[in-house]
């Protein structure tokens, strides 16, 4: 006679199987939204209370001193309260919009722009289909990440008090003190654009040799791709008026483009021109030139952006081992840099596309996300991580990634794959 426990285990499994209904995914999504709303409202109430509190943790109790001291302290603390903002336009209800929260992705509808109005008078108008995040706020400014698309920014002057704003778009940062400008960022081809109406800003980043000031009427366009590769993909040779590296940042309306400057910017290795060959799209020749000099020596001495270009050249030439070598050295020599994280992403691509090692690929994409949770390749990394985990047989993890991806990028390039994974 079969033991009772064995019968019950079998019965329990049947009960479990019968309980699985088809509503789980939809119900979980609905409840997720409800939970986020509940937590948001609670956090909003708590932060308003903290903002009003004179002494943190004391819940607004006045102690000691006279009325004048209390008023002085109140003014001082009021000046320290971070600015707030509201989001209006598109599908958001009400003329006044909704309160914004730091960290949330704000995405403008495909048909209409969305406006962010800050409590101290500054504003950002997000172009149709564009995305940004307000990463943090302070009493005299905020830090904003342009994830993709275009935004028109007007930073209010605050009298004697200096405004302090910082805008980030991929690897480019704009320090703003009081100005109007338009910024755009394309995370797919890593191009950055800035047009300044008034005031001045300082632009810096990994794809600039140093910080650059742009003043009223000036503009700046950058490609932050590794040197040469983008040009080869987009066109066979550079043409007049185009410059894949950098347009001169100037004062006034004129623009200077200097393709020849690209050669002088490239690092030299004993006079060899492997960089120029790679930049011109001659990957095999460029790789051989680097090997003639000594591939290991090149890896030890080249700049980070050059190592990325070399790794791309090796990958596109089918020389996977050289690509891995260049990327690995890059991560060792430039730890913590954006290029090192880009190398992690590239290592993931090599593992996925060239070696079919999906576990390894997943590890590298996860590394990128760990190092650059807001990085320019974040969307791609989440999508590729999902695919790699799915291929590696980690179905549960892939489903979680898929749900995360769709929450974040419902119309993104991996959305179709994500839906297929979630409902298989």
């Amino acid at each position, binding site marked *: 006679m079969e033991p*009772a*426990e064995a*019968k*019950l*285990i*079998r*019965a*329990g*499994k*049947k*009960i*479990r*199987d*019968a*309980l699985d*209904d088809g509503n*789980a995914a939809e*119900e*979980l999504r*609905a*409840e*997720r939204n*409800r*939970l*986020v709303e*509940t*937590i*948001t409202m609670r*956090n909003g109430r*708590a932060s308003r209370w903290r903002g009003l509190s004179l002494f943190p943790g004391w819940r607004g109790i006045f102690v000691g001193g006279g009325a004048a001291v209390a008023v002085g302290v109140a003014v001082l603390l009021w000046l320290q309260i971070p600015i707030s903002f509201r*989001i209006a336009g*598109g*599908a*958001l209800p009400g003329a006044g919009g*909704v309160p*914004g*929260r*730091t*960290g*949330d*992705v*704000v*995405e403008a*509808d495909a048909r209409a722009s969305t406006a962010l109005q800050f409590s101290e008078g500054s504003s950002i108008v997000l172009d149709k289909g564009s995305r940004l*995040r307000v990463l943090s706020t302070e009493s005299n400014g905020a830090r904003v990440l342009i994830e993709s698309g275009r935004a028109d920014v007007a930073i209010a002057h605050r009298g004697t008090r200096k405004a302090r704003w910082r805008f980030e778009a991929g690897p480019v940062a704009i320090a703003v003190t009081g100005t109007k400008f338009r910024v755009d960022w394309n995370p797919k081809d890593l191009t950055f654009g800035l047009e300044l109406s008034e005031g001045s800003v300082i632009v810096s980043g990994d794809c600039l040799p140093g910080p650059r000031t742009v003043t009223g009427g000036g503009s700046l366009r950058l490609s932050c791709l590794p040197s040469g590769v983008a040009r080869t993909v987009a066109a066979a040779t550079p043409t007049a008026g185009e410059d894949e590296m950098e347009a001169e940042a100037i004062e006034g309306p004129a623009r200077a483009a200097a393709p020849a400057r690209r050669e002088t910017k490239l690092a030299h290795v004993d006079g060899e021109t492997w960089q120029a060959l790679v930049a011109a799209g001659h990957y095999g020749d460029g790789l051989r030139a680097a090997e003639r000099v000594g591939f290991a020596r090149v890896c030890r001495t080249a700049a980070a952006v050059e190592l990325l270009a070399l790794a791309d050249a090796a990958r596109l030439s089918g020389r996977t081992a050289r690509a891995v070598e260049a990327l690995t050295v890059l991560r060792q020599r430039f730890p913590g840099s954006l290029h090192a994280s880009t190398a992690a992403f590239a290592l993931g691509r090599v593992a996925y596309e060239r070696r079919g090692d999906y576990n390894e690929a997943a590890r590298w994409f996860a590394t990128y*996300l*760990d190092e650059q*949770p807001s990085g320019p390749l*974040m969307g791609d990394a*989440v999508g590729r991580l999902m695919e790699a985990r799915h291929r590696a047989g980690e179905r549960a993890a892939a489903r*979680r990634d898929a*749900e*995360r991806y769709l*929450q*974040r990028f419902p119309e993104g390039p991996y959305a179709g794959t994500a839906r297929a994974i979630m409902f298989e």
Partner: protein
Amino acid sequence: MVTPLTFARGDENLIDALRSGHPGAAAAFYDQHAAAIRRTLQSVLGADAEIPDLLQEVFIRAIDRIGELQHLEQVRSWLTTIAVFTARAHIRRLARRKWLFLFSPDQTRQNHRDPTSSDALLALRETYRILDKIPANERMTFVLRFVEGMTLPEAAQACGVSLATFKRRLSRAEKRFLREVRERPLLEQWLEEGTRWSLQKQS
């Protein structure tokens, strides 16, 4: 459209982020554990219409009490314990409503979702009618052990009792369940073999 910040880091960073009130952490925490917790609630309660509300309750409690989490690797079992206690409180509320029904039938409502004509769902309804007769603490032991498939130590931890106490309660629940099932031969047959079963034949 405004979307909460995606949180792409590991559990350790997520717990820290929850403690500091990171805007996207609650969503990420939910994404990681909601499906499993929903399943646990279902195992304990069956097809209960209040499971969505109970799921909310579990996560809000967990987020409120995240500071109590001692060991990172226990986050799932800690959440499961919260779910078990939430489900138990719900069962006791339902039991009190049944008393209310005796005096004011109009004030209570059916809690279970209406079954379809599927044999499996009819069998499920009968199974949970049996479980409704078993005291809440014993019912917990039974469903965690046999429906959720937990090991004895895991299930005892989720119930917040010693292994010895858990085994005693489980033994009582097993005997009760088997006795009830033996009085329903068709349900017994379905549980054992998965053959067609019908309420009409049973009555």
